[in-house]
């Protein structure tokens, strides 16, 4: 088992526990900030190596979401469906931001190799997609589109902040 596989397994467990035990409990109970949810676990899907087969990415995303649903959120399918969606569009977003020389397929999409500007735009696109999908499935109707957008935007700001802090603190290579 190579180094980066192991590292990704650790990251899976770490982000799963971090989300379930700590970030699920954080909420700012005042006026508009009531809408903020800290959703940080999509970072796992974001950081999978380039050469991960698309089907495997989707399956791993599914597992992450399903475990969170069953063990912490009591909401079977809600997180899982958002994860599956993000894992599916990840190759499309990677294609969208592909640099001139293309990617080095032995690497991972991280700040260290591709720079903070590239990583921020890549992470922001996928995180926004994840949050919007998640909040839509949560209420299961577009009737509350105003609340969905408000939740997406506010949660996006706080979750993105954490993801950038994570990248600076750990600066993962794989």
């Amino acid at each position: 088992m190579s180094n980066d596989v192991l590292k990704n397994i650790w990251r899976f467990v770490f982000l799963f526990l971090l989300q379930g035990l700590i970030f699920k409990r954080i909420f700012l109970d005042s006026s508009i900030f009531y809408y903020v949810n800290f959703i940080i676990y999509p970072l796992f899907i974001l950081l999978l190596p380039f050469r991960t087969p698309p089907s495997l990415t989707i399956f791993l995303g599914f597992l992450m979401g399903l475990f969170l649903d069953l063990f912490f959120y009591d909401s079977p399918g809600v997180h899982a469906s958002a994860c599956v969606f993000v894992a599916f569009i990840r190759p499309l977003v990677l294609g969208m931001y592909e640099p001139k020389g293309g990617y080095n397929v032995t690497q991972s999409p991280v700040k260290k190799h591709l720079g903070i500007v590239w990583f921020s735009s890549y992470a922001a696109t996928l995180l926004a997609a994840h949050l919007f999908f998640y909040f839509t499935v949560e209420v299961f109707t577009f009737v509350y589109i105003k609340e969905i957008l408000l939740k997406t935007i506010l949660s996006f700001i706080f979750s993105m902040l954490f993801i950038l802090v994570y990248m600076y603190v750990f600066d993962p290579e794989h």
Partner: protein
Amino acid sequence: MRNLILLLLRYNGFIVFLLLELFCLFLVVRYNRSQNEIFVNSSNIFSGALNTGVSNVTRYFNLTSTSDSLATENARLYSTLSNIDTDQLLRDSVYTDEDTIEQYLFIPARVVNNSINQNNNFLTIKKKDISDAIEPRQGVISDKGVVGIVRSVSKRYATVMSILHRQVRINAAVKSSNNFGAIAWRGNNSTIVKLEDIPSHARLAIGDTIITSGNSPRFPKGITLGVIDTFWLESGSNFYDIEVKLTNDLNSIEYVYVINNEFQAEQEELEQELINEQ
């Protein structure tokens, strides 16, 4: 088989995506429709133990406020106790069988998991003792008011549908006039609930206390729910729109009491017959 694998690879994960996404949506829909037991929920042993661990750490930070609220509650109980005139009771009451049965039993439990910002909110509580008689559909209160209704029970834990759950309705009454209705949550704000079914001839004022009505076997009469924040009458409507501010801060609950009503099953059975006949 080989063709199937080739197909999966060619479509770049699209088929895997489609299958898993459909499965997820099936789960979501099934869960939203039925309020039956979910096969795995947070009262299962694994996450229960993990959540207890974290709550063991965090509860130290709240020790001051917890002991404060316990002291306040003790004081309140002492004053109620000392105000009961025992001689009066003995002179005035005729003893019946009912006096010798303790109808309500309050079972203490500790909150290990809680949320207030989900679409439907749940709490997980841990029993003090495995033999505690906590059962589904029992009411749950804290020292400041109503918390919710027990949904499912495992050996050491129980999950509680919080008052901030869209399916929870609690029979309530205006304390001053005894007009009764039902409390329901409409989302978006963890401190405001709606009081419904109060007829337009009732006399109300902002600040009136809302208590449990005692109509349902889950809660005894007189447990505080909140105070009237605003109310208005839609033109042509026979019922008030009332917003009630909860006295209980659901965000900071540490200890709760589960209400075991000796006669709950009896009352529910009898009332169920009535519903079946209709």
